């Protein structure tokens, strides 16, 4: 039987690694102060962004940039609107 794999979701990107490597890297990320969600049964870990980094970015008042798709799937980047005022609205169907 092949060695079971492990998925690390880091910065939104899922990468496949060996099980031992994955567990080790999740532990390392946690010791480095990153928020980590781990599921050994599912052989996956999500490595998040520390509050200190998010808080510093927000406190700088530079609007954090992002790229997301519309309904048509085409990506759209917030900073493409530099030069105009933006009302950013987060909403949901729920």
């Amino acid at each position, binding site marked *: 039987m092949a060695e079971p794999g492990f*998925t690390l*979701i880091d910065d*939104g990107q*899922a990468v496949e690694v060996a099980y031992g490597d994955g567990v080790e890297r999740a532990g390392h990320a946690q010791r480095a102060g990153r*928020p*980590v*969600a*781990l*599921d050994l*049964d*599912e052989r*996956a*870990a*999500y*490595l*998040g*962004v*520390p*509050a200190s980094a*998010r*808080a510093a*970015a*927000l*406190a700088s*008042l*530079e*609007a*954090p*940039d*992002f790229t*997301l*798709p*519309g*309904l048509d799937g085409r990506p*759209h980047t*917030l*900073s493409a*609107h*530099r*030069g*105009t*005022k*933006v*009302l*950013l*609205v*987060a*909403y*949901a*169907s*729920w």
Partner: protein
Amino acid sequence: MWQAIQEELRGFGFTVVTVALDRSPEDARPWIEAAKPTHPSLIDTRHLVADLYNVVNVPTIVWIDARGRIVRPNDVAFGTDTFKHITGLEAAKHLGALRAWVRGEAQPLAEARTRALQSLPTETDQRARAEFGLGQWLVERGRAEAAARHFERAGELAPHDFTIRRGTMPMRGIDPMGPTFREMLGAWTKAGNPYYRPLPE
């Protein structure tokens, strides 16, 4: 909901950008198709914007000036009075302030005041978002039961974060308008916590 103000102010160097914190584009589609927006109307199934801006409920609005700087931090505002009978929040106050700022008739908040009004994430909030992120990835992989454990853990870590507690209900097969939500909301408000936290000014 926001198309009217987009249309009204588009000649003033202004645009609305909406982001749906929804399970799938299909969940957001009816809303977007009904609104017929001419502004960017984006889908954020992984709650990236919630993570970047510390969004804990919807709707949340942020004003960003032409230099790309936040000039009004996270606030609660509606584009219309459709839900006023439930929320008690009137659209007009925010829309009036928005108009004045966009037209250059009023200055936005000073930087120091903007910072003072920001709510910044804690380490526990970010742990909750990591649990959400793992759960959302598991949902994408068809691992609903495993995902539910992480969503529950996320909700325990950040009980004030309704993008997690309510926003994951559709992913868990729970009606986000149904009895489970009403029970959650009842317990939350009975304990003295507001569901919406509009800025004081």
